[in-house]
């Protein structure tokens, strides 16, 4: 066994250190204020049912010409984008002159059981876009969607392209049938209609179990060992606890929307195949004529890079940019290096397009529809 080079004495020292760090970790946990982070720089500009739209004002003199609306997934809360002053994509964007709006879907309950994808995309998201347009007296806004929020933005922009100047998607699934997509694979045969009939809205715990099932030992055990091992590092411990709180601050998913998304995307792969229906309208990604920036997390365990990369061959625009960052699904917003690169690229990419004169909206060019080259749909 030539690989193992530590002795029993080393083991004893390590165990002693671990016992000490364990006590320290318990102190950190006991002192932790388990509450949603404070967001000093935002205020509510729209309340619509459970939904709230927040405005974060630009914090420099040179402001971007077009405001940026951020749309997060229905799964988990959007405050991961503004987790703490030192870990805030939104703060970084505001510091670079962006007028940022954040859509918070809230916590669905019994009365949202029948809330559909059309309700979320064609009504709620559209209401937010309208508010931003009205507040800035602009015909078009910039849209940035994250994960499922990115999928929603793609659908919205395909339906209401005239209202969107530039579209940014981050860690966004497009082709749900790529070879290594375990989340999609696990949901592929599940009877979502029966699930919703039995449970109603899908509990956050069910979704968390699915996410933990991506890497069970790492997510259910190893990360806590790592927390103990880094307990002496106050900043790292604080960040871990903030993220841990966020991960399990999981709203339920409205039953109807869950069923539509599971059947339409995870099972039917409708976004990539051009068969996804939102409120009776089919989503054709080639209808996306605005500039598109697609940011991919290289180490994403929930949205495989190939699932995002599929967008390149499906959009109608000729102004398509792709950026791949060496980060995971959440790390792309948390890792200082990845976040800095993300903000830098987004701000510069938007600025380059904001400086161009607003061209009259062209009718969508119809391109031959392509089937995505994914393992399962091939």
């Amino acid at each position, binding site marked *: 066994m030539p690989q*193992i080079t530590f*002795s*029993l004495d080393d083991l004893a020292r390590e165990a002693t250190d671990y016992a000490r760090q364990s006590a320290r970790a318990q102190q950190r946990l006991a002192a932790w204020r388990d509450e949603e982070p404070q967001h000093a720089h935002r205020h509510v500009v729209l309340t619509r049912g459970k939904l709230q739209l927040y405005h974060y004002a630009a914090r420099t003199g040179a402001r971007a010409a077009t405001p940026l609306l951020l749309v997060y997934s229905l799964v988990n809360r959007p405050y991961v984008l503004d987790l703490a002053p030192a870990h805030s994509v939104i703060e970084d964007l505001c510091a670079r002159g962006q007028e940022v709006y954040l859509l918070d879907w809230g916590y669905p309950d019994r009365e949202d059981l029948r809330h559909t994808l059309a309700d979320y995309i064609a009504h709620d998201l559209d209401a937010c876009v309208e508010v931003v347009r009205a507040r800035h007296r602009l015909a078009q806004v910039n849209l940035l969607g994250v994960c499922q929020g990115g999928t929603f933005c793609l659908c919205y922009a395909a339906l209401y392209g005239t209202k969107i100047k530039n579209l940014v998607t981050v860690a966004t699934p497009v082709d749900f049938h790529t070879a290594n997509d375990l989340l999609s694979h696990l949901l*592929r045969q599940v009877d979502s209609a029966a*699930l919703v009939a039995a449970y109603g809205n899908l509990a956050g715990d069910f979704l968390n179990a699915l996410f933990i099932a991506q*890497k069970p*030992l790492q997510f259910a055990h190893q990360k806590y060992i790592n927390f103990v*091992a880094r307990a002496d590092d106050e900043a790292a411990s604080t960040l871990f606890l903030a993220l841990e709180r966020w991960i399990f601050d999981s709203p339920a998913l409205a039953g109807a929307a869950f069923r539509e998304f599971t059947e339409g995307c995870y099972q039917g792969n409708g976004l990539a195949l051009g068969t996804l229906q939102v409120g009776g309208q089919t989503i054709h990604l080639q209808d996306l004529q605005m500039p598109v920036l697609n940011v991919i997390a290289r180490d994403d365990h929930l949205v495989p890079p190939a699932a995002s990369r599929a967008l390149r061959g499906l959009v109608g625009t000729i102004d398509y940019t792709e950026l791949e960052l060496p980060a995971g699904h959440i790390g792309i917003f948390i890792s200082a290096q990845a976040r800095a690169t993300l903000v830098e690229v987004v701000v510069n990419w938007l600025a380059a397009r904001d400086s161009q004169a607003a061209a009259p909206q062209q009718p969508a060019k119809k391109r031959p529809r392509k089937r995505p080259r994914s393992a399962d749909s091939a």
Partner: protein
Amino acid sequence: MTAVEDFFGAELLRTWLHALTLPSGEWQVLPGFEKSPWRVAPPAADGAQLAQFAALLHEFAMTYAARSDGGGEESPAMSVVVPALLKQLAQQVGLLRTALNDAAAPFFQILETQTQPILGPARETHRRWAVVARAGLAHTRALHALQATHCEILELALGRFTGLLGSAEGPAITSARGLYNAWVGCADATYREQALTAGYATQFAAAVDTGSGLRQIWRTWHSATADQFAARD
């Protein structure tokens, strides 16, 4: 059974749980190893077992002292400890599988009994209950099958981990954390390979779907029963 194998036996778990509840400052020096960093927890209520544990630890340390060459890249003592650890892990997986089957068997039997038709005045009530029992049986069987697959995955992962440790290739493992991380990486990679098969997706869906079915039937039964009692009021 060698002292090392015994060290990783059932006594370890019992006494270690006790030891973990004590502040490390209360742990005692191992006789004969005053300069060593090893410490043992003092005897508590369960003194005899702890004394036995201390004796085992002492014997283990002696084994280590006798085998250690005091340097070099490979620790001879670890070449004894790690196989013993792997053997224990394999035994635990075996026990898990046995426990899974032993616990499930009588439960299946009870549920199956409930699904059989009966005669007499309680027949209709029993018939309604049998529908719930059948759904419960289907869900329990589906969960059992999925858990059995998890046991198989664990065995596969253990085999792969054993192979990894026996291989001369790859980076050196320089700490217990490194060893643990290697195990986690190995186990999660094995799980992922298996979970991505069509068979696993079918088993997973069956576990979810039969759960949905059970809940739906239970709700119907509960609602019908509540209606029945409300009518009597």
